[in-house]
């Protein structure tokens, strides 16, 4: 059976993708952001997963207000980079894994998570920036990706606990998938940031550090954090951190923290990144 060997979390800031695409990653402003991902690039070369389940949110790219699925899983053979208003990012088309995507969809639905199935979708910076941070600028992404989109734009988004429980259901699904493949699950978005209104620019380093600590040592505690606490203490867009709990829910209770990176700022946002291996 397949298994989840590790979880990786990272912010998915669009300006980070633009900095890389425009060749600015070694400039003084951006170098400390990117250098924190050197370890991840080495780690992925050592670990060589067969596939990544990538938890992210769409930012009004594939989903407008016409349809707003709470949890939606990508089952298509491939996903093209979206045009978010500047033209698509110059990155490879993402190769999907329909067999695994469909398997997870069926297994989680029977486990009472009412997943939306997507057979056609463009993917925005929420999905492609994390891939760029892990793999740089290759001509092809090195492994297959199952995208899992979470609504964190229209209120109410799913609760942290619901996300955490979904992670557990995804783990169960992967462990009943007939293959010997090794899977990495990624949670993306965050950390503290607010992009709207007079409070824009909000950052809370103490909250972020506590969240990173809790992700390793006390995920049950993190799963109890209500939406209001995220918005109050991590900024309105800090709510994206509920997606990290899906990743964490898919791991063992005990994990080894392999790497952590935290930097302020990247554009309007606190950059956070962690690698957790199953013990």
């Amino acid at each position, binding site marked *: 059976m397949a298994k989840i060997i590790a979880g990786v979390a990272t912010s998915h800031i669009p300006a980070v993708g633009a900095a890389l695409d425009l060749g600015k990653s070694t400039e003084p402003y951006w170098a400390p952001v990117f250098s924190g991902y050197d370890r991840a690039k080495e780690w992925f070369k050592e670990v060589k997963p067969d596939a990544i389940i990538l938890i992210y949110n769409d930012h009004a790219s594939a989903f407008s207000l016409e349809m707003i699925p709470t949890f939606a899983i990508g089952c298509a053979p491939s996903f093209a980079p979206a045009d978010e208003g*500047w033209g698509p990012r110059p990155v490879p088309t993402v190769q999907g894994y329909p067999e695994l995507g469909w398997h997870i969809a069926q297994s989680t639905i029977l486990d009472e998570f009412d997943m939306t199935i997507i057979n056609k979708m463009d993917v925005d910076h929420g999905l492609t920036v994390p891939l760029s941070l892990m793999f740089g600028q290759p001509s092809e992404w090195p492994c297959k990706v199952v995208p899992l989109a979470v609504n964190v734009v229209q209120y109410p988004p799913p609760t942290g606990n619901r996300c955490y429980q979904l992670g557990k259901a995804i783990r169960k699904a992967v462990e009943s998938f007939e293959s010997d493949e090794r899977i990495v699950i990624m949670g993306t978005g965050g950390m503290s940031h607010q992009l709207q209104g*007079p409070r824009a*620019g909000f950052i809370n380093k103490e909250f972020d550090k506590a969240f990173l600590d809790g992700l390793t040592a006390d995920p049950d505690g993190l799963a109890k954090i209500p939406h209001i606490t995220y918005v109050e203490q991590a900024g309105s867009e800090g709510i994206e951190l509920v997606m990290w709990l899906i990743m964490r829910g898919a791991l063992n209770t005990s994990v080894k923290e392999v790497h952590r990176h935290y930097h302020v700022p990247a554009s309007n946002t606190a950059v956070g990144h962690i690698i957790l291996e199953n013990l």
Partner: protein
Amino acid sequence: MTDYYDSFKKIPGTVIFDATQSRIGYHLNMFAMSLMKEENRLAFKNNEDAYLNTFPMTIDQHAAVRARDYNKMIELGGNIYFLAKIGATDGHSFQKLASLMTGMPEESYRQMMIAGGRSPSMPIGPVEK
């Protein structure tokens, strides 16, 4: 549901994109969404009023777009991820939009972020150096 949303109203300088905002902002957001296509960006730039008139939004929403008043657009149901497409069409970065919403010059906003951002103890809105 009332209890759930009431708690968010105490957070200053923040609008939660709830069901009400989503309903009143539907056409404003769908206009912004249309700017994901190059042909629509060109049509909008060519004649903003004519393009905006193809969407059944309110006069106030129309005026807020023309004024690029992002705080007003948010008050009238706009969501920042949709509105960002207007900024992108204008060639503005997200950081530029954020500085506009805080009432700060872009460079001052950028310096605030480099210094660690708006910490929880800092005031909402423009920040003096």
